[in-house]
């Protein structure tokens, strides 16, 4: 390129707005099979609203009172079956009730190399234990988040 113009360096020419137009434009295939797991009732309400949006592969689940996973509005699923084929799991919590489930999910994902993200909705003080249970396993913890943060996270991850 620098030879062609004779003036500008290759980097200067390549970094111009004019050259930016030539970046190959192909649609980005969603690469992530995501599971969004709500650990408690309030988190499940958020998950239900999020599930109403259009997603590529994301599936939304919730933990029930005994720590089993279920599809939103569906029957129970063993944890292993629920997370089969997933490559990212986003865990939503608003309080400590889901602590044990958080730990089980964390362990499972760690063992199977599934990237885990934890999102604490609200001020987070009520979810300290759930966060502590997830901390060793979650690649990222978003604390003091709100519903739109989860939406933005899932959108950015193209799930």
């Amino acid at each position, binding site marked *: 390129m620098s030879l062609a113009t004779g003036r500008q360096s290759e980097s200067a020419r390549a970094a111009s707005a004019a050259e930016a137009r030539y970046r190959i434009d192909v649609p980005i295939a969603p690469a992530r099979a995501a599971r969004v797991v709500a650990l408690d009732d309030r988190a499940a309400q958020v998950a239900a609203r999020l599930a109403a949006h259009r997603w590529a592969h994301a599936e939304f689940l919730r933990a029930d009172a005994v720590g089993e996973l279920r599809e939103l509005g569906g029957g129970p699923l063993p944890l292993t079956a629920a997370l089969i084929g997933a490559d990212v799991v986003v865990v939503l919590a608003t309080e400590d009730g889901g602590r044990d489930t958080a730990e089980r999910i964390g362990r499972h994902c760690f063992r199977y190399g599934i990237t885990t993200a934890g999102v604490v909705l609200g001020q987070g003080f009520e979810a300290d234990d759930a966060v502590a249970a997830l901390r060793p396993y979650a690649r990222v913890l978003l604390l003091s988040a709100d519903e739109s943060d989860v939406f933005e996270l899932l959108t950015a*991850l193209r799930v």
Partner: protein
Amino acid sequence: MGELFRQYWIPAMLAEELPETDGPPVRVKLLSERLVAFRDSEGRYGLVDEFCAHRGASLWFGRNEQGGLRCPYHGWKYDVSGQCLEVPSEADNSSFCQNVKLTSYPLVKIGDVLWTYMGDAATQPPLPEFEWTHVPAEQTYTSKRWQQCNWLQAFEGGIDSSHVTFLHSGGLKTDPLFKGAKGNEYNLNDTKPFFEVADSDGGLFVGARRNAEDGTYYWRITPWVMPAFTMVPPRGDHPVHGHFWVPIDDENCWTYSFDYHPVRPLTETERQAMVDGHGVHSKNIPGTYRPMANMDNDYLIDREAQKRGETYSGVAGIAMQDASLQESMGPIVDRSKERLVPADSGIIKARQKLRKAAVALRDEGVTPPGVDPEHHRVRSAAVVLPQAESFLDSCRDAVKAVPGTAQHTV
């Protein structure tokens, strides 16, 4: 986003650019406006419209004399507030010139920086209180460089802790302002940090966690104060550094880079290293704020140094390693083509906060986070904590700027 920036005091230039009274005026472009800065006979700073109200000559050519800047074309003269003082051609010039006033903004020296506020005078906030500009002069150093890309993609590098282990790996071992800290070993030994992102009053804290000794984590905590102030977590007893990214226009920004020590003067060696462009600073072309290594010379890329492992990308210096890659994305990177990962959550959240603040300001007139000077009193920190502890709970004091106390560092 322009309106959002106009809620804040932002760096306009370095104090060294206007060293003397009645010195030459300096062109300043900020938030897509062309301005000229000068210091009048009494030492007052002025930041006014670059172009003369008469027929639009650039006041960069102005004569800075006797309490004002005089346009050399037909002699109109302005004071630091942009008020026209004299129109020589008018018989009764007092009443005519009263009505002539150039747009102007306040320009205030705090530390080594001249700050301006480009918003509505009615909502001008109190002056900024960032610690780096309030410690004694011998404890602080600030440089700036022109970066040829949108401010946001530059700023995002400041809260992106995961690139350090790769891009800056050479610098961790050799840079005089980085090397030797215990924390560097943790950094280099664990290339897959875990992240926690939490709201602060003024923006965010991004915590990056790596394995340390058994049962402990090494945490690096990066604060962001909206809109564009970030600090790098400290290393050992090295001075603490950080940045302020200021939009020049949509495709250019000023990167202000600072280093300060909260409780001791910088040593001669440290200050010289900063002047020489080590650490977060750049070596600039003398008389300018353009880095010597820039896109016009391919950043002086050295493929042999890359092969030898001295630099990871072939570009020398931490500042230019960042700038070269951020500029290579193009003047405004196309974010619709990104593939973000959970480790990018800090960036995802920061964009979200900026957008929310801009919308709340536009629709409801809500003052954004980071305007209140109380929000400026933050610090970065590097700490080793037991695994069970949350960095936010354990580091409340460490991330607060308390004058006269040392930084928390490993």
